[in-house]
């Protein structure tokens, strides 16, 4: 169980950073996208998503700000910082290496 959780947490950061690379998004949107794009395999809810967002924000990889759009409620949008972009590139590379290694050993198909 806990291994699964660690793996998810690690991967979650990559997922979130990648999703924010496309454009600024708010928390609920991130949760929905992860859920949809993983075909329901990866699910984040309110109690698991935000600690990750806050940790990323604390590390300076993303930055949140309140945005008020007309006709909508106030939402907190996150955007990738320059530091976040670099980190995302690094993480992509290390995940890539990791999966390549896994694939060689365990004959996994790269996700």
């Amino acid at each position: 169980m806990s291994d699964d959780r660690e793996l998810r947490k690690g991967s979650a950061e990559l997922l979130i950073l990648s999703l924010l690379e496309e454009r600024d998004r708010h928390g609920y949107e991130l949760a929905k996208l992860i859920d949809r794009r993983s075909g329901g395999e990866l699910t984040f809810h309110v109690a698991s998503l935000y600690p990750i967002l806050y940790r990323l924000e604390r590390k300076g990889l993303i930055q949140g700000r309140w945005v008020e759009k007309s006709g909508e409620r106030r939402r907190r949008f996150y955007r990738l910082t320059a530091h976040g972009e670099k980190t995302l590139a690094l993480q992509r590379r290390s995940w890539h290496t990791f999966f390549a290694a896994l694939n060689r050993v365990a004959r996994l198909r790269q996700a």
Partner: protein
Amino acid sequence: MRDWKALVRARVGPLSLDGARDADIVAELAQHAADHFAELVANGIDDREAERLALAPLNDRDRVALQIAGADRPRNPAPDPPPSGGTALANIPRDVRYAVRLLRRSPGFAAAAIITLALGIGANAAIFSVVRAVILRPPPYHDASRVVAFLNGKTGATGSITSSSLPDYEDWRRQLTSFSSIGILSGWTFNATGLDLPERLFGARVSGSLFPLLGTPALLGRTIEPSDDGPSGDEALVLGYRVWQRLFAGDPNVIGKPLMLEGRPHYIIGVMPARFRFPTDDTEVWAAIKNNMTGMPRNGRFMAAVARLKDGVSIAAAQTEVDTVEAQLEAAYPDTNRGWRVRLGGIHDVAVGDAKPALLTLVAAVGFVLLIACANVANLLLARATSRSRETAIRLALGASRRRIVAQWLTENLVLSLTGGLFGVAIAFAVTRVIVTAGPPGVPRLDETDVDVAVLAFTFGISLVAGVLPALLPAFRAAKSSTSSSLKEGVGGSATTGRNRAGATLIVCEVALAMTLAVAGALLLKSYARLAAVRPGFDPAQVLSLKVFLTPPRYRTVAQNKQFIASALDRLNQISGVESAAAISQVPISDPSSTQLFDAEDKPTAPGDRPAAGYRAVSASYFKTMRISIVRGRPLTDDDRIDTPLVVVVNEATAKRVWPSENPIGKRIKWATGVPQFDSQWHTVVGVAADVKSNGLDRPEAAAIYAPYTQRMFPWLRWTGFVLRTQSSPDGYARIVRQELTNIDPMQPIYEVHSLEHVIAQSVSTRRFHTGLIDLFAALALGLASVGVYGTISYWVSERSREIGVRMALGADARSVGMMVVGRASVLTAAGIALGLALSIATSRLLTTLLFNVQPFDPPTVVGVATLVSGVAIAAAYIPARRAARLDPLTVIRGE
């Protein structure tokens, strides 16, 4: 429309220490939950289920809080703290709100703590207000600390303020240089006429220097000045506040009006403020001495001298000078001054005098009650701390500093103690009302007791102490507890053991304090019982006493005086239901004794070594009326008249003092008043009367000599008492007695008409009052301590329920489980009793002056109290013991 923020807030608790950030997070989570909910509803899920699903992830509040905190901290570098503890101050309102919210959630705990503290604080506030009125508040004199009283007494005896004579005073005034001014006064009874009823006013005749010396300004008009004290001129009169209200209804135009005192007009020149009561609380009017006391002998020691120290002169320096002058007076007047010494005492200390030790005992008693209350609250907090250890751990994980945790705990407890303080003030208000109305007459300024600003400030102060003190232990224990261990589910071993040890220590202390107080209470109770059981030497049942004060102009001569007494006895004896009536110049217990020096014919003494005896002029019927037995010889009879040989009856104390191994019957004495005409005639002792407790139940009878009033020659002793033995309740005769005496002289006031039983009860009222209060506080202490024992043992049982279950499963029966719990309580109680015993021995010195015929360490009392205390403690432990014995072993073991 759902308030998502509130829904989220209700689930997550505190998330960050930064208030704004906390609100931010809640808003964001709320937004998320709202979006989720909207989507679920859009997918056809009903509202309630959608809400449940949207919020479900937040239900594990501790985990959510921990994870968010772990991720979010440290967010930004902490802003620089404001210079002087601003952060701590800024936290206060939030801490208070949080505390109130928490306390509302556990009303049982809050109520228990608040009631306990209210009792402790209320008792302290009430006693403080008494102490403030009686001891702390300075008398209303100008710079009262510079005013001293002359306490005159024979070497070795404690001097008293009312033991100075006019000739000594004149010498002091001429010779002493340490004082800027010296004044003297004499207690004086004024018969006031011209009012609706003749009235006896108690007041003083003062030297012209006295009022300027004290420096209290008059409320209306002016005070007595030296010019009022001349030999000629009108009599000037200053009214006390109460008599001004009582006789003149507070009329501001009273100045200049005459009041008929002793048949002469006394012109009212001023009214004093309510707080001015010099020298005693019951002084109502003041007039100048003028020529009213001319010819007073040097040993006529009944006046009070006071003086104001010159600037820069210490009381010690003044004392040295007084000693020198006293030695000179002794050399010059050995007859009257041998062995007499003056000690200077601060005027306020002298006035407070006897009341002080009793009040200090009360202060100690309520202090103990408060400590016990604090210990109880500390115990409650410890129990709560254990159940809140997870909360504390979360707060620590959230980044709260240990200081903030402690501050929050203190805030919580201060909210409790200040609320307790508010109720305490209410209790103090009620208690002081009772004290003022039911308090004994002997405590000076007791009626000034009031819950004023100073008392409120004091109450606030002790509320703070009561808030901080009990919280310290649990607060530091909480702050010390490790985050990880407390977060683990089954809060186990070490924390609770520590809590139990701390709780046990508190209980031992509580029991010790309660024991000490109970011992003091029991000793005072025993004293009081012994005092109440003292046989006064006369039979007070069904005896009415009353007094008249026979003054000029109508009773200028001794003969006129005797004439009134004779007529009065005649009329009183004829009242139906009166068995016998008698006259006496000193009503036992109620009147001070009038001491006279005398010489015994066969025992010549040096001038200074003369024996003294209380002089009592009585009618022949006195011994019969009072049922005082004559142990030798004969009583006085109606045949002892002015024209028959002079006779006296001495009491046993006199017989022992003068003729220790001889029969005093037939011996002769003569008075040594210093006035030749009274000192020339011999009086034959015809009888010895049994001693009576004339000066109070707690004092031994001093030497006294009874003389037939018909043979009295001294012009002093203007006061006369009457005693009547009645066939039914004596109070029922008061009206007719007044009427009969008024028929003799409608201008003559009659006062202090009381049954002798009432007189005796009054004489012990101060003791009864103190005993009652101490016992009340002891009972309160015992009650609180038993609550403490109950709480601690209950907690101990609940902590041990698993162990108890195992024991029962292994075959222990309910009885042995109950015994185990009671055993635990017994061990703690025994330790407390032992400690309390040590404490009561250490504090026994405080009690010595208050005890009567009981030693401060009285083994039977200690044993009795120890039995009581352990009984109460074990009874308190019995409830949790029974609960333990009823535990179902299976449920308990399976349960956790």
